[in-house]
């Protein structure tokens, strides 16, 4: 789960990171009071859950409260990568002397939490990794002992040779590690962490992605979810316990299992079609889940046919077949359904579907070809 910068700043501040004070507003007029209270200059920042806000004109500096209102007016309502800006953050601006990148992830290779730092901050870190990998220092951390003081010293001195600055950076790194582990994040980064002309260190941006599987133990963080900034089909799918990603094609897909669902989309492309979505109904399916899945797919007007590809294991084919019958009755489906059911209770499923006009497929390849043909 992604959260807004404003919420990430709040979490970081709670772990003692040097975050400049800020205020979230939704009306441009409120920028004046915010700027007056914080003290100018301020930076006005669009709160949308995508990167590249600065390039899209979503981050602007204001030197007076009046200017803050103008900038907020310009940013509110802006379209950034398909998302409309509805909230802006007004934050006390910091003069920047040096910019650093500091981040935490879980490293698949070492199977440990890993800290990454770079003196080339303020830019896309993936770009730094591609072009100048020597400017990034990565250190895996043993979660038993936590981030060790010697690691902190090594990381901090990689960023600054000034002892007083390195000490502040070190403190920020410890805070970052604790915030990452403490909030069950999958990513926590500050880009940039900056040094001002007085040699003071500030975290002027904040990004935290949470591990969805751990939200159950962080109800206060779970509440930070912003449904409005996500695809509504994806929100509905999550509520129905389905895994769904919207795409741009014409063939809706309902599959059990993530790997098979990806392979089904790939095969649609391989044979010249375009999938409309990724949808995994999961292991223990029920007729209700199938109904929810079809409803979600039908929200998309581009969909011209629906392909159901089930390899039954825990998933019972007759459950899926019953769900399709219910969907047909309740939703009055008039677009073609191509159905491939193999595995547990396949025979029962085929009997259930025999009298319908759904298109039966012999195997996955046959199903994909028929779904492409049916989509026209």
């Amino acid at each position, binding site marked *: 789960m992604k959260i807004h910068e404003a919420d990430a700043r709040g979490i970081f501040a709670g772990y003692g990171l040097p975050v400049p004070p800020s205020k979230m507003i939704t009306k441009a007029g409120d920028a004046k009071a915010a700027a007056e209270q914080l003290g100018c200059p301020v930076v006005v920042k669009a709160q949308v859950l995508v990167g590249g806000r600065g390039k899209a004109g979503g981050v602007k500096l204001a030197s007076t409260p009046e200017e803050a209102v103008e900038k907020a007016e310009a940013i509110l309502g802006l379209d950034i990568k398909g998302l409309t800006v509805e909230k802006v953050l007004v934050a006390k601006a910091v003069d920047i002397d040096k910019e650093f990148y500091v981040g935490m992830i879980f490293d698949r290779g070492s199977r440990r939490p890993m800290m990454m730092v770079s003196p080339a901050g303020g830019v896309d870190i993936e770009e730094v990794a591609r072009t100048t990998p020597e400017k990034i220092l990565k250190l895996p951390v043993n979660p038993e002992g936590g981030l060790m003081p010697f690691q902190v010293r090594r990381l901090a001195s990689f960023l600054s040779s000034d002892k007083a600055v390195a000490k502040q950076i070190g403190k920020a790194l410890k805070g970052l590690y604790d915030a990452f582990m403490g909030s*069950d994040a999958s990513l926590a980064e500050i880009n940039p962490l900056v040094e001002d002309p007085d040699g003071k260190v500030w975290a002027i941006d904040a990004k935290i992605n949470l591990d969805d599987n751990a939200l159950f133990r962080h109800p206060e963080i779970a509440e930070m979810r912003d449904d409005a900034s996500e695809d509504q089909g994806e929100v509905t799918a999550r509520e129905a316990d389905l895994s769904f*990603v919207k795409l741009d094609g014409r063939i809706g897909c309902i599959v059990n299992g993530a*790997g098979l669902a990806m392979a089904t989309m*790939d095969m649609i492309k391989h044979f010249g079609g375009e999938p409309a979505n*990724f949808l995994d109904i999961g292991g223990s399916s029920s007729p209700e889940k199938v109904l929810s899945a079809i409803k979600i797919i039908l929200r998309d007007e581009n969909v011209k046919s629906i392909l159901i590809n089930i390899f039954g294991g825990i998933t019972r084919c007759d459950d899926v077949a019953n769900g399709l019958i219910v969907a047909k009755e309740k939703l009055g489906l008039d677009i073609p359904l191509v159905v491939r059911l193999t*595995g547990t209770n396949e025979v029962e499923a085929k009997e259930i579907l025999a009298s319908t006009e759904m298109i039966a497929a012999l195997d996955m390849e046959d199903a994909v070809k028929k779904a492409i043909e049916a989509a026209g």
Partner: protein
Amino acid sequence: MSILVDKNTKLIVQGITGRDGGFHASQMVAYGTNVVGGVTPGKGGQKTEDGVPVFDSMADAVAATGANTSVIYVPAAFAADAICEASDAGCKLVVCISEGLPVRDMVKVLPFITERGTRLIGPNSPGIISPGRSKVGIMPGDIHAEGNVGVVSRSGTLTYEIVYHLTQNGLGQSTCIGIGGDPIVGTNLLDTMELFAADDETDAVVLIGEIGGNDEELAAEMIKNSYPKKVGVFIAGHSAPPGKRMGHAGAIVSGGTGTAAEKVAAFAAVGVEVADTPAQIVDIMKRLI
């Protein structure tokens, strides 16, 4: 020989009185797996319909049965503890079927069990099967056949799809293992490739990869540096958009890396054939063997 599970596997089912654990314990017994016990705290002393004794703890279960392997079907919030309990009781192999474990739990579990000499498969794994010998997991047993092809995969049903094609075309399997779809798993692709490399009964390996991480690239590197078995590959996720988690927590293209195209290119560069469709893997394996 096969790898990891065989006729010597003595299995405890953790969460055996739950819906999934109970159902799959019966399925495993029916397949011929030597299920020697189950564990559900507070329900010790019972017996399942198949006559499998239930214990309160892994320590009790291992002491009473001499079990060497455990399979876990408990809810995600309790799964990390269940893994550690099995390891602490002396199980050298733990297979975690449960999905949805927080990654932070996993990174804490791994040093604990490594210290005790335990190998973990999963979490979020469909399990392991050595056809005709032992099935530890949730895969449908009847689609498999005994043979000499090893299968390693990051997913469940896609593996069934591919195994189904292999079996239909006379290519039986030594062992099929689903390592799990999470970003951090106990045994990864490379670990499994090493196990197959050392197995006399495995002549060739089918590697089923997907987007996310760089395990497949590392596997390609391993093959380049000398790998004693033939390898055929299928990669899922060519049509996945960047930055979106495709069901599996680990299946995500981030920062432009972990794409299917990169993985295919890595294998192509070391002369390993990659199938375009699941069915095509059969032709590749027939050519290789």
